[in-house]
């Protein structure tokens, strides 16, 4: 399909392009003939993919086995396909699966042969999440364009690209993105384009695409003008000039209240979809969080102190520049510190690997730490988890970040006579499916690492244990999101294990509990954290490495207070959107009359 339409091309100009994609002419000339039934089969193969206009999504059957397709998502996809000409602002309330909705629309357009060149623009923190969702749930492999711009290759030759909006607006990258006429452009967290004078807005305005999907739960941050700007990207001129729009639809000069609801609803229904939670009829269950702050045993306490000191000395030996820009060396130390709080086997294995690469002078120090690790006889977290799992009457999903901890937990529970399944990024697809089957069947516990867990749908389970805790709140939410997602019909119980006075413990107490992290959905978190999410891990680590214990706690508390402030602002934005759209119905479900 010719997709690179030159801008000077004239509309309504028919071009009959003749092609022979499979080289059949060459086969004929070379006398390479197949038996007749193959020709018949070949022709019927096209009948399978040429479908007349149909009410259903072409990908419905395939996607049903991979994702929980919700009625509001299917309706939205059909509406965008059939009535919005593939250009829409998807503004469902938080937690209703806008990403899935957008991917469904993409898959539908792709299966119909309308879309080949796709560009996804996301906030930096969500780039790999999009990549994972598209790959595991929609079987679509995208290229992530990251790093220096000269490493991206040619945008024109890469057909499916995910790029962070920050990378995309760099001058060289933007120029190349704008030189391609994309079939589909997807912009996630589109409220970042609220201001028409920003680089973000101009970037999206300057990229040409046949179809455009913009995703946000909060199209209005402060005033109606922001909604106007977003709609102007989807369908320029639909709302008239800014002055006209304001005088027609804004009830106050700040644009915080709407007038002429029905007229606005009529215009927006051509380009915008907003489904509210209460319109879906979906069961939304609660989350109950329980943190277990455990007192360390003597051996654990000594090991923690010694390894933390080791990490601190290594951190202090790094040049200031590396520390400030959180170079890879810093992340290695963060990982070591996290392995320490994860489990003794995890830190032991890490230290052994470090020992192999260490200088002769360093070996002695590492040996001392390994000796301390070998002296840990009682493991407070493991004991607590054993009790927890033994007493649980339901299936339990245990999360850890590290493979060594995963194996440690598995072996312990198996020793107790339990049936345990494991799931990790180190397993191949067949092994993973076997594990999931076992967990659906007789296994009481699934011990899982974050890597590779993205595509799992585990709504049949409602107990989650965080054996260790990521320092990135998004990661925590992604874990809980495996079970607490659309389709979960029971309340979800989350248990988090920490050992008192460790970094993890302070993060849990001073940060996560303060912002009530365990009650937030991923959409909420995105609203609260924004770009801050990339800086949280190194910021926490720096606080601990550069301060004494009191100073570190104070720094974490300050971060907590800062995030509480952001949370309040995010909640106020959500309320503003709820209030403005209270009387403007834009859900495809409403149009179906709730059928």
């Amino acid at each position: 399909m010719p997709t690179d339409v030159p801008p000077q091309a004239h509309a309504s100009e028919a071009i009959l392009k003749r092609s022979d994609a499979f080289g059949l002419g060459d086969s004929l000339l070379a006398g390479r003939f197949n038996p007749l039934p193959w020709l018949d089969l070949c022709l019927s193969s096209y009948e399978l993919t040429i479908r007349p206009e149909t009410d259903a999504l072409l990908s419905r059957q395939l996607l049903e086995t991979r994702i929980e397709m919700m009625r509001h998502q299917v309706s939205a996809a059909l509406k965008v396909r059939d009535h919005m000409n593939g250009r829409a602002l998807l503004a469902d309330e938080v937690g209703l699966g806008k990403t899935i909705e957008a991917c469904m629309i993409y898959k539908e357009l792709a299966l119909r042969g309308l879309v080949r060149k796709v560009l996804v623009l996301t906030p930096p923190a969500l780039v790999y999440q999009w990549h994972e969702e598209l790959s595991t749930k929609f079987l679509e492999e995208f290229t992530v364009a990251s790093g220096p711009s000269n490493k991206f290759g040619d945008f024109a030759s890469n057909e499916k690209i995910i790029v962070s909006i920050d990378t995309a607006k760099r001058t060289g990258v933007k120029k190349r993105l704008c030189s391609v006429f994309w079939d589909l452009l997807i912009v996630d967290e589109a409220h970042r384009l609220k201001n028409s004078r920003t680089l973000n807005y101009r970037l999206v305005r300057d990229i040409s695409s046949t179809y455009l999907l913009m995703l946000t739960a909060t199209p209005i941050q402060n005033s109606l003008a922001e909604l106007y700007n977003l709609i102007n990207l989807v369908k320029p001129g639909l709302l008239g000039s800014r002055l006209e729009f304001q005088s027609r639809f804004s009830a106050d000069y700040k644009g915080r209240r709407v007038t002429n609801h029905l007229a606005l609803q009529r215009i927006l229904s051509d380009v915008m979809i907003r489904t509210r939670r209460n319109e879906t009829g979906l069961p939304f269950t609660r989350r109950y969080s329980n943190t277990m702050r455990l007192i360390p045993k003597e051996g654990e306490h000594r090991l923690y102190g010694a390894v933390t000191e080791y990490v601190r000395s290594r951190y202090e030996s790094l040049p200031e520049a590396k520390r400030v820009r959180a170079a890879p060396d810093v992340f290695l130390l963060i990982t070591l510190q996290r392995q320490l709080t994860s489990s003794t086997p995890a830190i032991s294995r890490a230290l052994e690997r470090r020992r192999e690469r260490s200088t002769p002078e360093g070996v002695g120090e590492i040996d001392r730490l390994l000796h301390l690790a070998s002296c840990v006889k009682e493991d407070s977290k493991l004991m607590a988890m054993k009790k927890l799992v033994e007493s649980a009457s339901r299936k339990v999903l245990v999360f850890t970040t590290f493979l060594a901890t995963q194996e440690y937990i598995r072996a312990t529970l198996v020793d107790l006579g339990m049936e345990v399944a494991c799931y990790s990024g180190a397993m191949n697809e067949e092994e993973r499916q076997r594990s999931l089957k076992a967990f659906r069947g007789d296994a009481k516990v699934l011990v899982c690492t974050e890597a590779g867990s993205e595509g799992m749908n585990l709504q049949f389970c409602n107990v989650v244990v965080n054996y260790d805790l990521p320092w990135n709140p998004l990661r925590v939410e992604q874990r809980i999101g495996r079970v607490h997602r659309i389709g979960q019909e029971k309340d979800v119980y989350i248990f988090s294990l920490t050992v008192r006075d460790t970094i993890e413990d302070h993060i849990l107490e001073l940060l996560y509990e303060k912002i009530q992290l365990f009650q937030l959905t991923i959409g909420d978190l995105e609203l609260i954290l924004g770009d801050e999410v990339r800086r949280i891990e190194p910021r926490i680590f720096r606080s601990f490495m550069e301060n004494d214990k009191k100073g570190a706690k104070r720094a974490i508390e300050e971060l907590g207070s800062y995030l509480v402030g952001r949370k309040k602002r995010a909640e106020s934005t959500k309320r503003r959107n709820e209030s403005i759209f209270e009387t403007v119905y834009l859900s495809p479900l409403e149009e179906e009359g709730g059928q």
Partner: protein
Amino acid sequence: MSRSSKRSIYRHWRRKEASEQGGDEAIKDFVLKYLDLSGQDVRSEDGCILVGSRSDPEHAHAIMFSGEVANRGQCELVAVGSPYLSRILEDTRRRGVAAAQLPTANPEVALGRISPNTSFTILGSVEEMPRRALKLYYLLTYTSNKRSQRIVEVALDASGQEIQWLYSTRSYLNDEKPEKFRADKLELVLDGSAFILEKRMEQELRGLKEESARLLSDAIDRIQGYYAQLRDETRNEAEFNRSHSEGSSEGRRGAISAGMSFDEAKRLIADYDRLEDLEIERERARYRVRAEATIVGILLLSYKVLRCRVELKDERASREIELNILPNGEAESLACEACGKPIGEIHMCSNGHIVGSECIVSDAAGDKRCVICETKK
């Protein structure tokens, strides 16, 4: 609507969706035929279909056509968009070239159909003339803001002329080992087929163009109206600032001068002009109608045309004619002596004129007469 009724609608929808997951019969038929043709071992087990060698069951691949069964049995679901089906489609589509031979007509039987009312005798021997033709199968795709596709068949001889009678022929055999097709002839045939396709598409394309032009015109009106309004507002604001600035006190002038100047307005208007052009070009690209014809199948046909001299005779007249009999039993290029159109069924009048059914007309008395000589048939 209450929460409980919404919830029950949701559950009803889930049940309805689940009941529709019976699988796609067309896909199932297609895949099973493919597996059969490619000689793969297929057996049913635990609701799944196992594909692969019986002797090495470990490496058998489990597939299913229903999502529900696929989930239960850990089989790979085969559906539109699934990798398994995509691989099969790709493989099948590479195999779309075949050759076949059409059976030669029986001249007696064929003549019986061509001349049902007049007796005939074949004079001398029947000569067999070998011929070759191509059936080209095109995937025709129209793309504008929407897209439609269908398979179109074009039948031509080696000189690129369309052969109408070949369209209804399906009774071919496949026992032929054909010679290679010459490259120069292929070009000729392809050009001929493109010409035929374009003629066939003409009307369809006109409708599509009209719809696209209407949508494009709406979009351009919206964009032009919008930017015209922006330009007006900008000019008015600059004008307002100038007039108020001229007649105001110095303090007020200072405040007004913070508003838009004429130079700024000019720059802004130039920017609007640029954006307007860009938006219009984008809309043109969105609604541009494209048609693409991809060859997806080729059938090389060999057949024999029978040339014979035939004497037609009844009680009042007789004629000798030369006939080419096609494999479908029709006469090739036998024209009506009255109107020149091809004859399906021969009628001979008492003066020996050979005409088609349309040129034998009934008079007031109900007698059939030849339109050339008006004699009774």
